[in-house]
């Protein structure tokens, strides 16, 4: 692959520049902005995809400005970040397409113009989080992400959205504060900010300081991710935001936060040196998230709120996966992140389009829409079945690997709880599906209009079927286990990064 190390750099730089240039462009050539937005989306997606492909074949290290690891910022991507870079490439593209594809000849609407810059800044910061090799740099990118996310949440300016944005802002800032506190404790203890170097000196940091840092770091990153009990902002924010923003937030942003939790806890707080076991704690928090998410989703009348609570539950599955502390568990969590990102992005798109058609976010008003739009209805059905976890569709295989990993450690109750989530998700998804496909009563008006981004939705709806073939692709399974190995033994990361430093 040409310039294997540089794809990640441009996947951050390009959207960041595009954000500002697009705003300028709107001034000078408003009618062309739509095309330029979609072009930038395509290029960013391609760059991120290239970064993912280059990372999947080995560790890529880029020294920014030529500074060494002790003074400068490194960009590092390895097979683990490759999975999340794929999610970013596709999820980001889907979200931008959903929001900006229907730009009319006269140019974007005022709202679209307001949002386009922020979308690309968000995407750039996501790629930054996924490829950074430096602790404080992680915090900086999280801050950029946060600002963009808060504003995007409240961008539709309804009372609900503004309240949700404000709650997200306050809680998110508390989370950022916790991350910053942990970063400073680690810096004070270790004297260094680079992940690889810090992970080699972390044994010398006093245990008390390490414990404080670990607690705050998990709290901060967990808050960004929607881990219980830090999840309270998530249902409000993800349900009040506009469709494209919800797709991005629920599909990609929480996964990036999960990635950083995974990276930081395994590199900087490994069990042998720290003396406390983080995976067990994450397992418990994961179980808590699972049940909170599924039980809270049950009586929701707004479809987007239901999907947001479902995100909380699925973050629980990811935490349980890494709580099993084995390559198989991590591999299961990675597969499940991919499945969930694809399905949740698409489900939010579908929910948004159905809401526009029926005029309300209540799923009870979706009567008969699945029959009126059979292709999209079938796609919604497949996606919901995949998220519920029915075999042989894609969503089942991530859960299967997590259940295997749990039984490997002898944790049969955790294994049962993971699959119990399937039974619990049926309780709330099935009535929605019935309502979509039930015949419309004659006195209700048939909705007119087109299903927004129908082709995209249908394409995304086919992913569960594609992922159903996972069982037949052993190389994918081995790749995920190998990525899991990277996580479980931090020495691999350390040696790879520091080894590439040698001129």
């Amino acid at each position, binding site marked *: 692959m040409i310039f294997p190390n540089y794809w990640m750099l441009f996947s951050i730089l390009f959207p960041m520049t595009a954000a500002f240039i697009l705003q300028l462009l709107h001034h000078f050539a408003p009618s062309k902005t739509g095309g330029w937005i979609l072009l930038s989306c395509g290029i960013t997606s391609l760059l991120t995809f290239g970064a993912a492909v280059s990372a999947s074949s080995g560790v890529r290290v880029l020294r920014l400005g030529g500074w060494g690891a002790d003074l400068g910022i490194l960009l590092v991507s390895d097979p683990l970040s490759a999975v999340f870079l794929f999610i970013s490439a596709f999820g980001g593209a889907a979200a931008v397409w959903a929001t900006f594809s229907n730009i009319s000849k006269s140019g974007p609407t005022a709202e679209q113009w307001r949002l386009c810059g922020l979308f690309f800044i968000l995407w750039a910061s996501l790629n930054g989080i996924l490829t950074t090799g430096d602790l404080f740099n992680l915090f900086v990118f999280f801050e950029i992400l946060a600002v963009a996310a808060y504003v995007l949440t409240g961008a539709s300016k309804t009372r609900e959205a503004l309240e949700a944005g*404000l*709650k997200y802002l*306050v*809680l998110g800032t*508390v*989370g950022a504060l*916790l991350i910053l506190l942990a970063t400073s404790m680690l810096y004070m203890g270790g004297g260094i900010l680079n992940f690889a170097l810090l992970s080699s000196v972390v044994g010398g940091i006093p*245990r*008390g300081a390490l*414990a*404080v840092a*670990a*607690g*705050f770091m*998990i*709290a901060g990153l967990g*808050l960004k991710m929607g881990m219980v*009990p*830090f999840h*309270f*902002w998530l*249902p409000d924010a993800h349900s009040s935001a506009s469709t494209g923003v919800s797709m991005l937030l629920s599909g990609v942003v929480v996964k990036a936060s999960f990635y950083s939790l995974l990276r930081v806890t395994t590199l900087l707080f490994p069990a042998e040196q*720290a003396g*406390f076991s*983080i995976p067990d*704690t994450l397992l418990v928090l994961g179980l808590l998230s699972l*049940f*909170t998410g599924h*039980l*809270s989703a*049950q*009586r929701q009348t707004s479809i987007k709120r239901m999907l947001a609570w479902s995100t909380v539950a699925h973050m629980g599955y990811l935490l349980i996966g890494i709580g099993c502390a084995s390559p198989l568990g991590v591999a299961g969590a990675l597969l499940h992140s991919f499945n969930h990102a694809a399905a949740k992005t698409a489900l939010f798109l579908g929910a948004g389009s159905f809401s526009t058609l029926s005029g309300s976010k209540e799923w009870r008003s979706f009567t008969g829409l699945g029959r009126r739009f059979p292709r999209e209805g079938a796609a919604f059905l497949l996606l919901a079945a995949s998220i519920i976890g*029915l*075999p*042989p569709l894609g969503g*089942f295989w991530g859960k*299967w690997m997590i*259940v*295997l990993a*749990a*039984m490997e450690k002898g944790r*049969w109750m955790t*294994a*049962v*709880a*993971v*699959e*119990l989530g*399937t*039974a*619990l998700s*049926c*309780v709330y998804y*099935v*009535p929605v599906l*019935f309502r979509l496909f039930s015949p419309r009563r004659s006195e209700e008006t048939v909705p007119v209009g087109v299903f927004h981004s129908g082709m995209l939705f249908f394409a995304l709806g086919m992913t569960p079927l594609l992922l159903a073939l996972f*069982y*037949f692709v*052993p190389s994918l*399974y081995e790749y995920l286990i190998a990525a899991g190995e990277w996580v479980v033994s931090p020495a691999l990361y350390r040696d790879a990064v520091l080894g590439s430093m040698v001129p």
Partner: protein
Amino acid sequence: MTEPFFVVAAERVLPALLAGALVAAAAVYGEGYFDAVEERRAFRALLRVFFFSVIGAVFSSSWLVFFVFVEISTVALFLMIAIQRRDVAEGYLQIQLVGASFFLAGIAGASIMGGALLSSPVPRVLLPLFILGLGVKAALPGLHFWLPEVHGTAPAPVSALLSGFAVKLGVFGFLAALPSEPHSFLLAAGAFMALWGAFRAALQPDVKRLLAYSTMSQLGYIVAAAAAGSQVGTAAAIFHTAVHGLVKGMLFFCAGILEKTYGTKKFSGLGGGAAALPWTFFLFVFAAASLLGLPGTPGFASKGLIKEALHGFSPISLCLLAANVGTAVSFFKMGAFAFGGVQKSPRKILQGRLRLMNGGMLMLVVFLLPLGLFPGWAPSFLGVEGIRFYSFAKCAESLSVALAGALLFAAYRKKPGFADALLRRIDEAGSCFSCVSERGGAFVRSVQSGFLRGYLFAAVATALLLMLWFSR
């Protein structure tokens, strides 16, 4: 992951033939049963999905493949029940998925510990998970609470598939998971199921619930035979699975015809079917005689084989004998109330539809007749030779059991609903899943208060707790 998915063996062919027979008969029956064109179309499509998933399950070589196909069949059944009763269908799906949770955990453990193929028995320590998981499907006592409701209120052809085949998948799993030695818990469970099901069946006011409890009772026979651990036991379990499946299919079809003719399932509304539905009555007599195990019917052969298998376990055999009496009582009750007695006003069903429904029942008879006329064929196909089915003692035993049942029925005929409320409460004690999830959901939803101060407090307090937890 590169192992073959499917394996063909003698003990899997018989269940596959059963599935084929039931699906074909249900297809014919369903054309006559469902009122609306939409319903008929949906049923036909779902029947195909059900058939393929069940064949996949029966011939699967590894537990994971078996699980995947069983789940697909569960979804197919759920959609079939939902054609008429959505609430019951949703409950059915949830309960089956709860059972699947335990089953999947067991399968994962087996994959890790090396017993991933169906042909090898499961490691001992994982057996409780398998029993819990498969027990929900096979309606073991304590896990059976869903069966009367679901089998009793689903549309008749779907009940036939449920009672005739779906519950047998659980037993099929038991046969694969159990080692070749007697399993005392399952033997006791089987005996209890047989007794409980038979006597509860006799007390039901509703024809389909009676048949549902009778399914539980016959499942008890099958589970006990499977738990005997010998090859005779396995053969007996599979033979009775086939016979019971076909017979129960016929009986549920019959119940559906009664429901369509009289507009109700309750015995209080039925009567005089022998005159109004002569063909149906004739087929009912054949099916009931077979279930009772009268000499000459396939049921006599399969119950005889079960008695052979449980030869060494006399308390279990005695329980099964008593259960037989209970079965006799229930079917004399069904016959007397539904087909005998005072003629209640039948509705007119189109002759074509009635012919289709009777045709479905007749198709099952075609499969049953050879099993009855050549009782030794099925056991020898399954590897068990040299059983003497017909002896004076055995015929006398089965006839006297039927007679005892008839006498008991005649004596207690005036009290059809004895202690029904109390027993129903005992039965439904296990159905706590939906109320737990409701209550739990309400509690968890109340925590999401809307107050930002509360959220901040939770976040900061947990951060401090985590810090304390890690530094201890």
